[in-house]
């Protein structure tokens, strides 16, 4: 039997462990179940709508068309020969800027001089501002206290306090498979002043030297002001992961959206508050868009097969508005020379809305992003790896939705 001494030791150890565990629990919050953000009209946003924008009673609802009203290319960052992987974020109506665009620019993808460039759509002049470099790897490395080898895909998000957050891929010792995700946040400043950024931390997502988690597609806003940031792992195996953040930008949890082995760059599509889809690039030879789904607000995910849409192992963008789901993707099995905007009411059957680009093989239009601001749908995508093209659509209600072209 146990001696009296052993019993005392057990009691002491138990008290120590229980005390530390209770203290640990007291320092934390228990996240409520995640609910995708839904408007009063039943719309949910795969990319953020301008939070203070007018309600837009019929955006995307009922019969109507998305009509192309403007198009162009974002200003080229000074000295940059290449541009790729744009991200868009809509700002509140009180801000003089309606949309911010971010992308990586430099001599080429993965070049040592690649930085994150930004341009702002000015509401008054209705023009994009000159591009400026806003994230430099040497500066970020200096703040974090360790080196970053290269910068890559940026993703932007507007938090519950109206601050813009940036999530940027930064590689360690190796290529993209050694990527990590840096979390930056807008520094406090006067409204309308040029945005400055402070690195907050490197997101800690993996035990293996924290490598091989990357970000590419936009976040899905939640009702509590937080969001789910879709990321993916890509060392040898590829699989998607959802990171949940609160309205302040604090990481709450991470959940695998499947075990791969070839699905990456998930784009989230909320069907309702609890039922979401993830549409993913497929790096296998199947040439399709892969789908995973959750019925419980992202706690568990199931593979749902492929969409009946061609895709050449290329990133997609999604957005839900007014009960209509939108998808921008490359509708080919090989090459990224075409890019298309499609719509769907259930996320499974898709109808072509606009051919954004339809060029000869060898051209590249890829890595799309979408945002909804001031009642307009904004789309950006990489154009020949040289510039970032953008399109602006307005919802015209009452007209039948038919295929159109820019």
């Amino acid at each position: 039997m146990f001696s009296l001494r052993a019993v005392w030791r057990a009691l002491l150890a138990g008290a120590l462990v229980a005390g530390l565990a209770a203290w640990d629990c007291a320092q934390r919050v228990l996240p409520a179940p995640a609910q995708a953000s839904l408007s009063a009209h039943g719309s949910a946003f795969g990319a953020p709508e301008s939070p203070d924008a007018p309600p837009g009673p019929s955006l995307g609802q009922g019969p109507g068309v998305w009509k192309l009203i403007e198009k162009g290319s974002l200003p080229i960052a000074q000295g940059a020969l290449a541009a790729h992987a744009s991200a868009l974020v809509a700002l509140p109506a009180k801000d003089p800027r309606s949309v911010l665009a971010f992308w990586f620019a430099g001599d080429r993808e993965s070049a040592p001089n690649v930085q994150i460039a930004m341009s702002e759509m000015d509401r008054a002049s209705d023009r994009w501002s000159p591009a400026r470099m806003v994230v430099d790897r040497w500066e970020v490395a200096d703040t974090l206290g360790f080196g970053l080898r290269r910068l890559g895909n940026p993703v932007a998000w507007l938090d519950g306090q109206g601050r813009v957050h940036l999530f940027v891929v930064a590689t360690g010792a190796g290529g993209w498979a050694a990527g990590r995700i840096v979390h930056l946040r807008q520094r406090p400043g006067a409204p309308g002043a040029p945005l400055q950024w402070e690195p907050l931390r490197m997101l800690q997502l993996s035990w293996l030297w924290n490598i091989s988690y990357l970000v590419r597609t936009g976040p899905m806003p939640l009702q509590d002001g937080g969001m789910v940031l879709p990321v993916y792992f890509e060392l040898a195996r590829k699989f998607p992961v959802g990171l949940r953040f609160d309205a302040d930008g604090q990481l709450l949890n991470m959940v695998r959206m499947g075990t791969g082995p070839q699905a990456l760059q998930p784009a989230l599509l909320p069907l309702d508050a609890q039922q979401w889809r993830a549409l993913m690039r497929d790096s296998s030879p199947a040439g399709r868009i892969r789908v995973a789904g959750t019925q419980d607000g992202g706690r568990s995910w199931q593979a749902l097969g492929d969409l009946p849409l061609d895709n050449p192992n290329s990133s997609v963008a999604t957005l839900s508005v007014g009960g209509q789901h939108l998808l921008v993707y490359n509708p080919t099995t090989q090459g990224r020379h075409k890019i298309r905007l499609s719509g769907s009411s259930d996320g499974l059957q898709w109808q072509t809305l606009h051919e954004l680009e339809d060029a000869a093989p060898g051209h590249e239009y890829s890595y799309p992003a979408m945002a909804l601001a001031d009642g307009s749908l904004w789309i950006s995508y990489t154009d020949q790896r040289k510039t970032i093209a953008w399109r602006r659509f307005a919802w015209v209600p009452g007209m039948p939705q038919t295929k159109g072209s820019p």
Partner: protein
Amino acid sequence: MNLAFAPLWSTLWEAAPWLPAMDALRLVRHASWALVCAAMALALCRRLPRLRAYHLHRRPWLPLAMALWACVPGVWGLAYWLGLAFQIPSLLATLWAATYLANAFLFPQWHAGAEAARAAPRRIWDRIGLAMLLVLGWFLLLDTFALLPWSVYRLGFAPVAGLVLLLVAVLPGVVGGGAAWRSNRGALLFLLALLLFMPTRWPTGNALDAVLDPGLWLYLHWLAWRRWRPT
């Protein structure tokens, strides 16, 4: 399950991560790499015959140089580049390195004690701990590549991981008392790493990162091979 326990149960498993403060972490990164690099340099010196005869305890130039180099901030510092590749060592690796250096330079009597303890027959807890960390590392590696049906690493951010690891860590003391700590210094370092992790959250806020990093895990394989190889 009794519903009254549901919130506590959920908190243990699903509470949001509690992450370390970034400012302090910069210093901890330098200090950790300084200790680990100095310990590795010392171990290397002890294994090279020409350096072994160099009276390291009186002239520890190489370990000292490595430590100082790791403390240099910015691109000229070792921690900057080691951080690029390997981020930051676990607390257990750092404490292990600190003990190794202290044994060599500050408290040689500890070293004698450790040598005596190594020969003692009652080192069962160190062996159990070694086996446990090896298995844990394999689970974490498989989990990294999503080869397990559930995520192990994610649990390291939840309070349950700290609780379970603490329960394991205090076991030698409960069963064997102070004598168990004296003869099982690895188990004692494991407990100290957790006690340091609980308030500071170093190095990442994940309890599993506090007790095991891939570099330490590889070293433990070598240690296990040395200890258990067939003679």
